[in-house]
């Protein structure tokens, strides 16, 4: 699971709503996969991210800052979580990640009827 994917995920345990984001990620096994750098792609992706804690927000003109884009590229697309868990910050529910695949299925009790 790439970190870009993680940024899109939210918990849908019943009653949690917007407090289900972001999921707390605990990775026990991570792999770095080289991915071809596409600055335009990364630049377009950045505004779509839900960046909750950004120590220094993207500075103006970030889309031309290659160093910054490469860093974001690495973090979002090259880091691959193979094993770990995603935790709903509100309910504490854990979603497993195995062999790089997050399993976001909820049980019947956890879903809204």
């Amino acid at each position, binding site marked *: 699971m790439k970190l870009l994917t993680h940024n899109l*995920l939210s918990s849908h345990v019943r009653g949690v709503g917007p407090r289900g984001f972001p999921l707390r990620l605990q990775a026990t096994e991570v792999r770095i996969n080289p991915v071809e750098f596409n600055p335009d792609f990364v630049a377009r992706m950045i505004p*779509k991210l839900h960046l909750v804690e950004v120590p220094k927000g993207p500075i103006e003109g970030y889309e031309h800052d290659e160093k910054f884009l490469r860093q974001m590229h690495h973090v979002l697309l090259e880091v691959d979580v193979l094993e770990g868990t995603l935790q709903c910050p509100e309910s504490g529910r854990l979603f497993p990640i195995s062999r790089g695949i997050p*399993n*976001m299925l909820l049980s019947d009790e956890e*879903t809204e009827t």
Partner: protein
Amino acid sequence: MDQEAVQLEKRHVHDVYESTAPYFNDLQSKAWPRVRQFLQEQKPGSLIADIGCGTGKYLKVNSQVYTLGCDYCGPLVEIARSRGCEVMVCDNLHLPFRDQGLDAIISIGVIHHFSTKQRRIRAIKEMARVLVPGGQLMIYVWAMEQKNRHFEKQDVLVPWNRALCSRLFSDSSQPGRKKPCAHPERSHPYPPPCSVCSCSVCFKEQCHSKRSHSMDCEPLMAGTCCAAISKDGEEENGFYNTLGKSFRSWFFSRSLDESTLRKQTERVRPLKNTEGWANNTICIQPSRHSSLDLGHHEPFSTREQYLDEDVFVETSQKQLEWPRAPATMKHLHEDQQGEVRRNGDGNFLEGANASENCVNAGDVEGGHPSASKILRRISALDSTDSNPEETISVEEQQPNILDSRAFMRYYHVFREGELYGLLKEHVAELHVLSSGNDHGNWCIIAEKKDNWD
């Protein structure tokens, strides 16, 4: 009623895909051109989800966008992952995305696996929820109106002829290869709702997991007993032609929506035996080429499908023999099984005296076990099919038939305008941009309205 829907989908969608996932050969399936086009038209840098991605055939169509594959079926997702795709396991009805997170979504052959109208609507609304305003959703569903066949009803169970495959293979020069293998039904002349497979024989693609997963229709067998056939192209075609023609019958399922309606009208009918199966009445769709179609004077669609009424009238001459609805096997009484064996003995091609009965399952409400009769249609293999070596004695086939019970897939095939109507009346947050028919599928492209959320 939702519980019955969940159970039906578990048995006839999820479990089937899980069991047959290992036999999907993705090399066989191609992406639908219109879907490819939709994906390629998305702006670079778009975030896209394929809800019901199956083995991920659409996930790498456009390298300028970020495409996430989602499917309910773990094994299919594993296959997609092994191809280097970014994927997850989730439920179409409960997508694990924050609101307005995605620029586009495709749902190819997925929502036709939901067994009630309400669930189909929920699936669409859930996809609309996660779209950004202006984001687009493409939906493909199997159409009821087909060029090569005519569906009598909208709710159908499509079998996979695993048993037939294994038997045929052991008949060929493959001694000792009698173990049944899970084997997706080869493409029929009347393509099954094959969401993922775009091979020339199958049309359409996907279904899916409503989490729907797309259904990678895999004509190729991965089972060992099929290996021999696959190497011989000539023989393979003949084999599959036979498969297709002999087993064109598909089962109809009672619509759970109809069942609810009936419940409310308090219909009381005398019931004979107690059988329970999946709370559905199974009716068999006559195949196009069978004489049954030609000689049959009772349009099925005009007969109400009461639980204890014969679905089919006896027809003269050739009829279709279906080795008994696999799902009902375990409920059969001894004498009934004996009857099948007797009739199966060397009578595969002969159907003059065969009568047809319908196996009815318990009513949805669960209180009324339905009458149980055996539905049997004697298959008339036409001249090109008639080949004793290729036929299968029902008796010897019994154990395999029992095993194949798990592989019937449920579909709700859509009438023209039905999908459009669903969106228009129930999903106000979406605005339909275009709709049409593509290779036997109704397709729609809709846009999330601005200022909605």
